[in-house]
């Protein structure tokens, strides 16, 4: 009985969607063109994805799988035309087959081989070659990252925390800001000292740290709610404006 109801709701929704589009196209609100069909497709997929809020259903499954497939296909095309063709195929492979082209850039063989070695992890006999690539990536990555990350994320971040609160010239509010940052940093750091029992002064200061953490979690959650609502608003704007033509 329940399955029958779900099937009826699905068929009714699809039917309503088709009728709406026929009406919109017949009344000239949607152009009968690639652009018009693109809008219909976009509206259909948006509604199919949001239908999950009611219940998991075949329309949602189709839209979900289509999203994965289309985004992967699009990525492959973009990577080929923006990266592999101009940076590897044209300078290394094309010159072998074209007399007018320049000499092949043989230096590109090194990164190409390292890239191919990475894929050899799938072969039992040749998987050891992938370690060369990983060794290169880890070594290079660590060498480049460690000094930069220490400089950007630690040294530069410590500076505003150590700024004097009262040097003259600044407003009282900015001095309060600086004191709050100092209090926040020290109390949260003390909260994360687990080798000392949180009793007495340590316990009181770590409680202040918990308050700072809770306020920051609240701010993050508030921003997250705003982000998710923004996505909904954007999609509803698309449905009301581009598809139904209600909004101007």
């Amino acid at each position, binding site marked *: 009985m329940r399955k029958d109801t779900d099937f009826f709701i699905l068929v009714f929704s699809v039917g309503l969607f088709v009728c709406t589009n026929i009406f919109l196209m017949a009344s000239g609100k949607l152009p009968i063109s690639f652009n018009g069909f693109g809008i219909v497709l976009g509206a259909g997929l948006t509604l199919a994805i949001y239908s999950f809020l009611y219940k998991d259903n075949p329309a949602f499954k189709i839209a979900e799988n289509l999203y994965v497939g289309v985004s992967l296909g699009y990525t492959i095309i973009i990577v080929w035309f923006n990266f592999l063709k101009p940076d590897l195929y044209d300078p290394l492979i094309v010159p072998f087959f074209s007399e007018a082209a320049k000499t092949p850039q043989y230096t590109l063989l090194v990164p190409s081989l390292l890239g191919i070695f990475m894929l050899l992890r799938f072969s039992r006999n040749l998987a050891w070659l992938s370690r060369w690539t990983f060794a290169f990536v880890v070594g290079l990555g660590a060498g480049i990252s460690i000094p930069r990350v220490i400089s950007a994320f630690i040294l*530069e971040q410590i500076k505003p925390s150590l700024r004097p609160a009262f040097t003259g010239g600044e407003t009282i509010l900015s001095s309060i800001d600086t004191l709050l940052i100092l209090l926040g940093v020290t109390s949260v750091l003390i909260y994360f000292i687990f080798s000392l029992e949180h009793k007495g002064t340590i316990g009181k200061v770590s409680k202040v740290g918990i308050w700072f953490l809770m306020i920051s979690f609240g701010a*993050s959650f508030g921003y997250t709610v705003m982000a998710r609502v923004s996505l*909904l608003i*954007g999609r509803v*704007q698309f449905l009301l404006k581009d598809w139904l033509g209600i909004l101007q």
Partner: protein
Amino acid sequence: MERFLRIDRRIIFAIIAGAVIISLILQFELPIPGSKPVLAVYKKIESIPENSHVMIAFDYDPSSKEELQPMAVAFLHHCFSRNLKVIAMTHYPGAPGLVEQALNAVAGQYGKEYGEDYAFLGYKPGGASLIINMGENLYTAFPKDFYGNDTIALPILQGIGSLRDIDYLFDLAAGTTIETWIVYGKEKYRFEFGAGCTAVMGPDMYPFLQSNQLNGLLAGLKGAAEYEALINKKAFAVSGMRSQSVIHAIIILFVLFGNIIYFMSRRTRHA
């Protein structure tokens, strides 16, 4: 009382959907004052001389379009109205379609020419290594633009050798690219840097404002709406903020309602 604690969540979804639709259809204005981080980006663009080079990194894809595309459009309006040269690029393979859409729509309104006034370098993988490459030599990082033209021949790039020659770099980010730009780009090549990000990332970016590693920040649809209001081009973000405010009020009411019912039901259980 207990039944209020077991409301079908689909009723709440329906209320939220209804509130969004009604607040979009009803035309009413809410004040959108510019916050300090948004004003900093605005003032920076106002202070750059004409024909200076601004690079925009469109580091997002369709899943964050609703927040970042209005921001990109508003920022492009400001750049083109100030006659700045815009160089676009992306770290995201899903971005090129959105970049073309935004660039062509806005540049067309100001009569800007591709190659002369703006250019799209396209997508390149690599993240940190791409930024380092751009910092050393822009032409080895992007030998060709998105349309297959040699970048060295583009008039807009005359006088630009690397990231050091860019007057302002603005990253529209849906992931961790702001940190990557700071660590591997700004720290070494010393360009002026601002960013726009999704609201989820907003709180994490404030420490970079505090340390001046970011000169300004547009966070989420609110940041986009503030920027639209500042440049007097009220569009998607401003109209979206109406719904945003209504939904936030409804969520606050739901939270209060849920707590009141919870405490009341606890009291009746104990009585």
